């Protein structure tokens, strides 16, 4: 059994069916991406996993225990960075740990240094660039005690170049702190570059359409995106996503 098991989760808001029988797993230390078009229900899936929303049907298991509707079991990085504007970088980074006890300040200091943010420890979020805010939010989720991290399109608001930097930065951090990660994105290349496995969702309602194992070895390099294997993969995934669109237009 995997670390995280999402078992046949179904959710509708009123008449609008958003998640339909979604099942997926994340193994210990694995990086899994969920790929789906905007508005397909990816954030809703995270909210169900995090216990914010009760599913109409289905269950969530973490480390073999049922945690459906239970809050505080995952470390979560929302689509907006959700940094607290009145907290400095230092106090923002500690927040996730603070909620569950005493934060490890040594680890925090080291991580801030590694992210190149030492000079900004006392800065407020509004003084940071978009990429820096995402780094702070990511450090916050790394310092949280939960063993599974859920990242909801963390880089979608960044420009193309910053995004590539951030993706490689994320991988370099993850290389040394191999937590289980569930990553949501609507960007095919991003999913391929980062993940061990990619789960493709269909649109409206979201159901698991296909699953791809990414064959590239780690550490990943950006040149991998230019290989034939990658192009072939991209084509396949693109086709799956396209089919998903077709179904809704018929």
């Amino acid at each position, binding site marked *: 059994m995997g670390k995280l098991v999402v078992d046949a989760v179904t959710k509708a808001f009123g008449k609008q069916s958003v998640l339909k029988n979604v099942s997926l797993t994340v193994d210990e230390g694995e990086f899994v991406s969920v790929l789906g078009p905007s508005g397909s229900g990816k954030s809703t899936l995270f909210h169900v996993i995090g216990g914010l929303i009760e599913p109409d049907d289905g269950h969530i298991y973490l480390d073999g225990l049922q945690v459906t509707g239970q809050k*505080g079991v995952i470390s979560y990085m929302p689509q907006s960075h959700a940094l607290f504007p009145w907290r400095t970088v230092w106090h923002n980074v500690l927040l996730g740990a603070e909620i569950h006890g005493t934060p490890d300040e040594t680890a925090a200091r080291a991580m801030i240094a590694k992210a190149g943010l030492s000079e900004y420890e006392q800065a407020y979020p509004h003084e940071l660039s978009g990429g820096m805010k995402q780094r702070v939010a990511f450090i916050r989720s790394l310092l949280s005690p939960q063993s599974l991290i859920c990242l909801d399109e963390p880089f979608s608001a960044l420009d193309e170049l910053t995004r590539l930097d951030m993706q490689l930065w994320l991988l370099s951090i993850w290389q040394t702190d191999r937590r289980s990660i569930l990553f949501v994105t609507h960007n095919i290349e991003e999913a391929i570059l980062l993940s061990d496995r990619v789960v493709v969702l269909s649109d409206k309602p979201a159901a698991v359409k296909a699953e791809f194992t990414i064959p590239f070895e780690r550490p990943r390099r950006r040149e991998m995106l230019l290989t034939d294997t990658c192009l072939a993969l991209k084509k396949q995934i693109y086709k799956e996503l396209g089919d998903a669109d077709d179904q809704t237009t018929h």
Partner: protein
Amino acid sequence: MLGSWQKAVKPGIVLIVLLLLWELASRAFAIPAWLLPAPLQIIETGLTGWADYGHHVSSTVQLTITGFLIGTTIGLGVATGLHLIPSLREAVYPLLILSQNIPIIVLAPLLVIWFGFGMLPKLIVIALVCFFPITVSALEGFRETDRDLKHYMAMAGATKRQMFFKLEWPNAWPYIFSGLKISATYSVMGAVISEWLGAQKGIGVYMTLASSSFRTDRVFVAIALVMMLSLLFFGLIVLIEKHVVKWKREERD
């Protein structure tokens, strides 16, 4: 800071021109001083009369600050209670709004009947005028908490207590300060009204004495004092706000 000084230049000039016209008019038409004293005369009374009104001012200041602190504390407490118990909020909040249609000045005689002429009815008047802006703005601040931040806290497993003290409370600070600024100016007015009810000392007393003896220049001095105190109090709150709410500049990016 420089910008706000520059903004003060134009209205400042208008004010000086108005005062000048007033001075010239009262000389040209020889208006009697008991009816409308000239600005220069008022200024002179103000500058030389400190011995007459100094103790009144300090008494009013004390009364204002005490009443303000009481009203603010109760206001924050009530806002917190109403926010944390939604059913209470639904029941009480409309009544709170309704109660604001009762002018304080008509309550004053009642307060005197119930509590006499001591400190208590005066403090109640000031606390009442301070209470409302604080309560309403704090409640708004608690409620206007960003949805994403709330989701983050909930998913992170925050307790209701952590949700309040780590998120809703700091989020309400800018709102509370706008409430404090309104309360600060109201509180001086409240103090003067409460002194009219009957007191030994205070700007309100000074004012009543001046008007009953037709020392209209002193009435104007009292008005100027009330204005200056209000401004001073307001400025003090702004100063504290600058220190406490350092993150405010961005206002959601």
